[in-house]
Structure formats: C-alpha cells, structure tokens
C-alpha cells in the first residue's frame, strides 16, 4: 500500500469529507474504502441469531442447584472446597501451625466457657496468657496472608475490589471491637468466640481472594 490517506482517515486525522475528495482521484484508497464497507457488511452478518434455549435449561438447572446449596448454607460443594483448601495449604505451609494454634485457641476458649476459672487464680492467668500468645500467632499468620492478598485485590476490577475491601474493613472493625472489649474483660468467653469467628471469616475471605480468578 503506497498511499497512507486511508490510514489517516481511519486514525481520524483526516475528515470523511477530506477523504472522500481524495478518494475520487486515488484508486488505492477507493479500493480500501470498498473493502472496509464490505468488512462492515460481513461483520454485521456475524450477529446472526443462535438457538440459546437448550443452554438456558442447563443454566437454570445449575442456578437452581446453587440456590438450594445456598439455602442449605453451603455455597460450594464440599469436595470442591476441600480440594481448594488442600491446594491452598500446600502452597502456604505456615498456615498449618496457624491452624493448629486456632484449634488450641478454640479448645481453650470452650474450656474457659464451660469452666470459667476464678479471675484471680494463677491457672486462669496462665491460660489467658497462652490464649493471647496463640491468638497473636494466628493474627500474625493472617496479617502475612493479607500482605500476599493485597496486590491481588489491587489488580481486581473496581467493583470486585471495593466489595472485598468493604468486607475486610467490616471484619477488621469487628476484630478491633472484640479486642477493645477483651482489654476490659479478658476472660469473657463470648467475646473470645466472636473474635475467633471474625478471624476465621477474615482468613476465609483472604483465601477466596488468593484463590479467585478475578
């Protein structure tokens, strides 16, 4: 192609009128314009209707299954979730000790709830100190997870990013509230349970972010 006027017209550096005047005397540009018209016509024919009814039947079935799973309180089939957790943990081995810490924390929490020790007893103080250590380990592990998830959240599209940010901000506020309440009453098993649930929620949310495809 020797004449570059069609390119200029395409790049909008030449108006349609200018190009039409030029094309009257330039066979090459007339040819390009004719091909362009033909491309438009043939491209329009790519919008041909497709029979989409059979696909809707499949989609409706899968949506109904998803809905009933949600109603039953399960958003994903168990094997899929299990597969995801195994693959997630194998890539982040530090989460295993964090999980063990969580288990200990949970058991200690339950024990405290069932048999509250006298606040002045040395055993209670020791147990509370242990809980604080384990909880700190768990929080550190979640913080490490959050650092890994941050670049992925930043790379998400705006709507999904704001969704995750809002969710994490809510959970963080919940965690801070529990921590403040525990400063006043460290042996309160109810608050410990709320804190544990919030930390688990945060862990699951970050796992979703790291495992997501958005």
């Amino acid at each position, binding site marked *: 192609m020797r004449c570059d006027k069609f390119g200029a017209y*395409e*790049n909008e550096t030449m108006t349609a009128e200018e190009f039409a005047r030029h094309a009257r005397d330039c066979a090459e540009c007339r*040819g*390009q314009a004719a*091909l*362009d018209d*033909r*491309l*438009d016509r*043939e*491209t329009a*024919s*790519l*919008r*041909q*209707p*497709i029979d*989409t009814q059979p*696909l*809707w039947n*499949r*989609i*409706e079935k*899968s*949506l*109904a299954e*998803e*809905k009933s799973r*949600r109603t039953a309180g399960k*958003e994903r089939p168990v094997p899929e979730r299990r597969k995801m957790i195994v693959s997630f943990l194998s890539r982040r081995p530090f989460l295993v000790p964090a999980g063990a810490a969580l288990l200990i924390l949970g058991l200690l929490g339950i024990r405290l709830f069932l048999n509250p020790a006298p606040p002045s007893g040395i055993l209670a103080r020791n147990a509370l100190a242990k809980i604080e250590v384990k909880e700190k380990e768990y929080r550190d592990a979640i913080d490490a997870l959050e650092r890994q998830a941050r670049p992925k959240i930043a790379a998400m*599209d705006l*709507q*999904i990013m*704001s*969704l995750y940010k809002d969710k994490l901000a809510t959970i963080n506020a919940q965690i801070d509230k529990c921590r403040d309440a525990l400063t006043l009453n460290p042996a309160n098993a109810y608050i410990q349970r709320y804190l544990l649930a919030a930390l688990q929620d945060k862990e699951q949310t970050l796992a979703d972010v790291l495992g997501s*495809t*958005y």
Partner: protein
Amino acid sequence: MDTMDEERIIERCRAGDLAAYRQVYNRYGQPLLRTALRMLGRPQEAEDAVQETFLKLFRGIAGFRLGARFSTYLFQILNNTCIDILRKRPTAAADEMDMETHGATSWHELAHSLTEAVESLPAQMKACFVLFAVEQFSQEEVADILGVSVGTVKTNIHRARRKLRTWLASSPRGGTS
C-alpha cells in the same frame, strides 16, 4: 429492557429469583454466547463459559452497584471466564500466540471464512473487535470490560480491521460461512 426495568430485574436477581435471571438471559444470552464463541472458537466451551458467567453473576450480584452498566459488568465476567478457559487449555500457548509472528500467507491459508479469520486474531485484538464491531459496545465500554485503556482498544480495533481487510482482499472465498 430500559434502565428502570433492568434495575428491578437486578433487585430480583439479588433476591435469588430465577425468573429474573431468565430475563437477563433473554436480553443478553445471544450476545454473550456469540462473544464466547468468537473468543473460544469451540461451541461446548462457549456454552460452559456462559453457564459459568451466570453462576458467577448469581454468586456476585450483591457486589454490583446500581447505576453502573449491567451489560459491562456481565461481559466483564464473561471475558474473565473465557480467559480462565483459555489458560486451562493444554494448547493455550498456541492459541494465544500473536498472529503478528505468523507470515501473512499462512494466516490467510488457515482462515476460510470471516468467522475463522476473526477467531484467528490474537486474543485481545479479537476481544476488542468482537465487542466493538460485532456486539456494538462503545470503545469506552470495551475498555471497561477488558480493563484496558481506550487507546489500547482503538489500536486493537484498527489493527484487527487492517488484518481483516487484507484477508478479504486476498480471499476470493471471503464470507461468513
């Protein structure tokens, strides 16, 4: 479907009303399936992509802000789903290969129709061309859907048109068979 209707339907979708999803499908099923077909080139995978798009919509509709363009949101999900499918293909490297690296002759020999010629374009160029020229989104909407700049969209559309004109000029069989 006007904006008010669409907002009502989205609200019903949020409430889990499957009839509302049917209305979304009636409105967008055709362009979604056509786009997936052009992006993936395989009917079965295209259907899987649209099905997955609706499942993701069902799971994530709570995060959709009213006032944003619903069609853009839906096609964003579809585009991400198609990219996932392409990544999982064993021959992904070959499929993703930029056609700039092929000689023009081999490309022309491979494509026997405009459909095939479009499918042979590099992934991002193809997505820009299909969404803009076939599904008639604006360049700004295409940029939103693909998460790229409007400049990138314009460049890709120009390059795609140039390639397709070259193909039409050299192909006596040029058509949409």
